[in-house]
């Protein structure tokens, strides 16, 4: 049990911290949360700055254009960028955390050369075309079909919850290439250009008021067979690779942000007198213990993944289950601190309270995560 960082790791942290101190003031002003083109420009500009400084694709393998950093260095990166108030991956989320790592792991040399550098440079943005209107958590029951026609697939169907679809250049798309096969087989993973004829995007307005994601309709969209990553009908396995990255690393930096928010809650409560309420004070104290433990659990998971060459393990499900609920409790406590001010939608914590509602649903609902923990870690039988 060693929680000290090596000299090399501390040197990495110091270099990064120094770079952040000079670079962050150069960022343009933050765009309005509802302005998606503005958000894309802001997020990709930040990605370009990272690229120029040698921090792009930090944890990607070197032969994929990444830096080949260790999981611990990636942890330090997330900690320091969050502490410095640097932008999160934002619109680059799918490219950097889903599609990119998947192509790096499963793509051909040509595919890696075509798609990975623009992700790292912030030139191209990806979205995720996995979920379908009637599928939900039963992702494998997807129905969007792709029929081979010469050297193209002809695709028809509908997708939903497609994050960043409005501003994306590419979509990581799951399609059914063999309708006769059992539902987990017969699926293929395709890279679809978003400007292909037949692609229609209709933004969905969330309860938080913003258009985070969209419905996407595909009407005889032609995608070259060369855009398929992995073998035909082997897309489910490729997808599992993607999802293990999603659960393993997607939320790490947010724990640091939550701890910062908790400190700000305490400061506000002391200023407005709410701190004198022992029930609220103890509630904030409990959350402090909770987020400290979640940070330690993160370090544990990173240490475990270090031993498996950086592939995130099943510990991601344990973390996500607890974190998604803790985040919701954090913003419930924030509303108590704010009192009547919590009705002000322009208050950052009110917006975050609303968006926190998605955490127990997105990327596998809490109920699905509990099944994963019960069946894959505890070995309980599959059932109903």
């Amino acid at each position, binding site marked *: 049990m*060693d929680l000290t960082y090596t000299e090399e790791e501390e040197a990495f942290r110091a270099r990064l911290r120094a770079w952040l101190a000079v670079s962050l003031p150069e960022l343009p002003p933050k765009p309005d949360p509802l302005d998606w083109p503005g958000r894309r420009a802001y997020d990709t500009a930040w990605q370009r700055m990272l690229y120029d400084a040698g921090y792009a694709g930090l944890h990607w393998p070197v032969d994929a254009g990444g830096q080949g950093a260790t999981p611990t260095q990636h942890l330090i990166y997330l900690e320091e960028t969050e502490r410095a108030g640097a932008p999160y991956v934002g619109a680059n989320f799918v490219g950097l955390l889903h599609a990119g790592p998947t192509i790096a792991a499963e793509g051909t040399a040509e595919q890696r050369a075509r798609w990975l550098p623009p992700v790292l440079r912030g030139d191209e943005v990806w979205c995720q075309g996995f979920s379908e209107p009637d599928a939900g958590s039963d992702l494998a029951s997807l129905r969007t079909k792709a029929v081979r026609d010469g050297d193209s697939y002809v695709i028809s169907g509908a997708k939903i919850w497609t994050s960043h679809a409005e501003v994306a250049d590419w979509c990581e798309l799951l399609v059914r290439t063999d309708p006769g096969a059992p539902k987990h087989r017969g699926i293929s993973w395709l890279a679809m250009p978003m400007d292909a004829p037949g692609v229609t995007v209709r933004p969905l307005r969330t309860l938080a008021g913003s258009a985070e994601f969209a419905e996407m309709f595909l009407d005889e969209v032609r995608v070259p067979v060369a855009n398929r990553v992995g073998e035909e009908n082997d897309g489910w396995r490729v997808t599992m690779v993607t999802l293990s990255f999603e659960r393993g690393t997607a939320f790490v930096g947010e724990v640091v942000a939550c701890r910062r928010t908790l400190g700000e809650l*305490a400061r506000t409560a002391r200023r407005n007198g709410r701190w004198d309420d022992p029930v609220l004070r103890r509630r904030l104290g409990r959350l402090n213990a909770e987020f400290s433990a979640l940070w330690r659990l993160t370090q544990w998971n990173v240490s475990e993944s270090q031993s498996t060459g950086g592939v995130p393990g099943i510990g991601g499900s344990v973390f996500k289950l607890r974190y998604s609920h803790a985040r919701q409790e954090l913003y419930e406590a924030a509303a108590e601190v704010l009192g009547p001010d919590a009705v002000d939608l322009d208050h950052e914590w009110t917006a975050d309270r609303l968006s926190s509602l998605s955490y127990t649903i997105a990327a596998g609902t809490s109920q699905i995560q509990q*099944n994963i923990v019960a069946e894959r870690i505890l070995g309980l039988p599959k059932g109903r």
Partner: protein
Amino acid sequence: MDFRLTGDQRALRSGVRELLAGRFGRDALRAAVDREGTVDRELWRQLGEAGFFALRLPEAEGGVGLGLPEAVLAFEEAGRALLNGPLVATHLAAGIVPGAAEGGTVVTCATQLRGHIPHFADADVALVLYDRSWRVRYPKDLPSARAVRSMDPLTPVHRSSPDIPTAPPHPDGTLLTAAEQLGSAARTTEAAVQYAKERQQFGQPVGGFQAVKHLCAQMLVRTEVARSAVYAAAVTGDLTEIAGAKLLADEAAVRNARDCLQVYGGMGFTWEADVHLHLKRAWLRAQMWLTAAESEEIQADALASAL
């Protein structure tokens, strides 16, 4: 940074687990219940010989010379096995009270449970903590102590004289108690999962039903979150982290025992199942050293002082 256990730490943990499995298995546990939790002096000496109490005493003083992380692993195993006796107090007394390190002296602590002393009748010595320093008292110095009927069949308790103060939070005592809670939480998770795989209802193991499955999943989540907190606090020795670790380990031990009881169904409510022994001990330990309210206030203070 590598938070995982070292090879030596894993070996220590499995060594303690084997020792306890051999010396304090199910029969010995139920025998201890029948004895109303009195200390098995022979076992106490064997623990002493194995270095359980002298684990952190320097080698120059006849100890094993290990640190708080190793002690936490040993106490986690004691918590798993539901080993009874004033283990934490005797461990803390090694190097202070003659015979404690070797297991020849049974030492309890008079200031960890707010006016109550566990294992008072068995103890050769009762430590009293004033501020941060120990004072040695003998049971004969506390004539007004009266036995109460203890809820936990493995922990006899006396109500002590009113001149015994409540101790300020003692970091190591608090953390080692949290480690016992962690071990108990892990054990009840295993028991629930094993039972859910074996017990059939409606033609299938009850562990196939989501309602049961989700109880078990939450037990594991509570255990692993508490484990991260307890292990990290053992490495840093930081009082705020220790308070947080106690809070989460108490919650994991108590709630896991309750969920385990639920998974066992009617069997869980019988004296025959061991679940109630875990729950009662977990409730008792949750009152020791730091309560939830005190831990939360320490956390709140840490938040406020960081401003």
